[in-house]
């Protein structure tokens, strides 16, 4: 019980949340440094777990302070969806379209990591320049979580395989989620629920499309998708 009380204490809670937001950013870097699709899925699972942890802490806090259950339910949903269901689904897609390991990224990994550092600096300076944001206590958390969005976007650009792009999108979604969580203490519950449904449908549809791409093009390399032009 005393642990819960400590977590629900605002000052300590903020420190923990700040640490978690840094860890989530680090997991995005980790993802960028991965070479194989299997390890993409693992990194994504780790990141989702960290987000579920954040949601859990915030949920306990809001339960003690305001008596709201919804963030805790969201935490359970994140674990069910992003930690268990979606990675499993992606692994299945990957098993169906298994291809020979080849060079998958546009530049080599040290350069990609450097660009990611640049993205963090970029989001720091853009957000620090906006009045109304710069003075707030959630500044660092906001910079971290918005950086995750940009890194997700860059991950999509840097990988050539369809599954890499799906994971990039999921990381963008994670970044958005953690931004909403830390900055505005969560969206209304029904909105969260709808976002989860959309996300699940997205993964299923993209899994199917990837499978068909593999059928038609004998690979899931998106570089081959350039028949439609002009």
């Amino acid at each position, binding site marked *: 019980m005393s642990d819960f009380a400590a977590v629900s204490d605002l000052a300590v809670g903020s420190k923990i949340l700040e640490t978690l937001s840094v860890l989530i950013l680090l997991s995005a870097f980790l993802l960028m440094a991965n070479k194989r699709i299997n390890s993409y899925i693992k990194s994504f699972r780790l990141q989702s777990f960290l987000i579920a942890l954040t949601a859990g802490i915030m949920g306990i806090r809001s339960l003690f302070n305001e008596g709201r259950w919804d963030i805790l339910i969201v935490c359970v949903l994140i674990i069910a969806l992003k930690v268990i269901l979606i990675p499993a689904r992606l692994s299945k897609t990957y098993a169906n379209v298994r291809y020979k390991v080849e060079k998958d990224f546009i530049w080599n990994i040290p350069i990609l990591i450097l660009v990611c550092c640049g993205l963090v600096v970029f989001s720091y300076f853009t957000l620090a320049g906006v009045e109304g944001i710069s003075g707030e206590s959630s500044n660092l958390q906001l910079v971290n979580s918005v950086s995750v969005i940009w890194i997700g976007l860059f991950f999509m650009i840097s990988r050539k395989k369809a599954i890499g792009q799906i994971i990039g999108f999921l990381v963008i979604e994670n970044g958005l989620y953690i931004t909403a969580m830390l900055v505005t203490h969560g969206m209304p519950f029904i909105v969260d629920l709808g976002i989860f449904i959309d996300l699940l449908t*997205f993964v299923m549809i993209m899994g199917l499309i990837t499978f068909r791409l593999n059928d038609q093009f004998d690979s899931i390399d998106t570089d081959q998708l350039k028949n439609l032009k002009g």
Partner: protein
Amino acid sequence: MGFLLYIIPVIAVIIFFLVKENHYRHAVSVASSILLAVCAGALTFRVIVNGVVIYPMLGGFFYLDALSMVILDMVIIIAFMAAVFSVGYLNEEKRHGQLTDKKIRLYYILMYGFVLTMILALTVKNMGLMWIAIEATTLASAFLVGFNSDKHALEAAFKYVIICSVGIAMALLGIILLHWSSTGVLTDASYLDWTALSAHAGALKSAVLRLAFIFILIGFGTKAGLVPMHTWLPDAHSQAPSPISALLSGVLLNSAMYGIIRTTAIVNRNLGSNDFTGRLLIGIGILSIATAALFILTQKDYKRLLAYSSIEHMGIIAVAFGLFTPLSIFGGLLHMINHSFTKSLLFLSAGNIMQKYDSKQIYKIRGVLKTLPVSGPAFLLGLFAITGTPPFSIFTSEFCIISAIFKESTGWVYTGMRLGMGIAFILLLGLVFAGVAVTLFRMFYGSDTNSLYPAVKDISIADRLEQSEPSEPSETADKYLGNSSAAAVKPGETNKAGALCLIILLITILISGIYLPPGIRELLLQARNIVMGL
């Protein structure tokens, strides 16, 4: 009454799952779209009389005012046209052995799912729920875009889902920031509710709101096909089956635009002027028109050309809302209506042309006026209409927007700049007209019987092979020269009900160019006042 709008498509989808025979599916589809139209008619009447339709159920998330009603009516009317047209279209495709019964079922399930998500996007008053519905439109239509399931369609579907989802994700960031700008102003129950946001617009944090607007413009702009983010649009619109292209172009783009309009209204109210939103919207709008004009000039595929024309018209609408004067907003709303009618007319008749000639390449098609006695003239007149020729309705709305550019002062636009902008706008519209005339009008000349390249069903297999590997026109011409004894396309319409749809659409755009019924006028004026915040 309002909830019937959700219930009817859901029931239709369930019936599609259950029934086995094709003609029942067709009947259910047409019947449910007629029911939807009846509901929409009744709701429109209530909106004109009462101003808003709102139900207390489920926290009052169902909300209809004149602005959403205008676009909702579009969705339902075009969905009706597409449903009627689909009957003949799918039967014809099936006759050519392109479709199985199972695929027809899938088509209808996805089509009504798609319509349902669009209805949902337009009838909720919560920005978050609207975002979900708009993302769901992408997901519901992904397999419709990739419906032909060849390489091209699959490529289009992949790009469509990836680009639109990432774009829409940016809009979610914008909505999160919008939510943040309202913390401390709104209470728990009214989070992200735009009626509340617009009522308390003055108290929102301006700096955060500006950032939110940029992200929402990028996000919904991707879905609306505004220029730097438009790359998915020509692929998706040219690969989807024609009735779906009509829905995508005539309706889906408007639904995304609707999100931008709502946000623009809130931001302008907060900042007290349209300086900020105006610059962005007009810049992006002019860029869209210019890019579309260039691509139209060099286009070889008529469905792609129509897709670029949609980008152009979204640009025009963006300029209209960027100007933010009473006249320009009225013109912009009218333009949305006219564009969806005209573009559906064009895509549906293009569908008939495509089934007749089995090709999307302009150079392979000759003598459309003779071979297709209804679709041919409808396509020709529709092309005149879409380029803004009087007496068609698009001329009226473009005229409103152009006179708004020249006439009314809009704050940040100085006289000289306004003059330059207006001239550039008119020149670009002229360029689009020239582009359409140069590239498309040759389809109508000549007769197919003495054509150099008789595009016929007999060579359709060769054609299909060729479509997967685009080759140079000269090569194909040589190939066909040696084959000039091939039989020509038989004249005559195959899709009778579809032809009737085309005639109805044509009459509508002709009449509304001259005379606007007082009910619609009243609705548009109410919608304008909502955008202006009056």
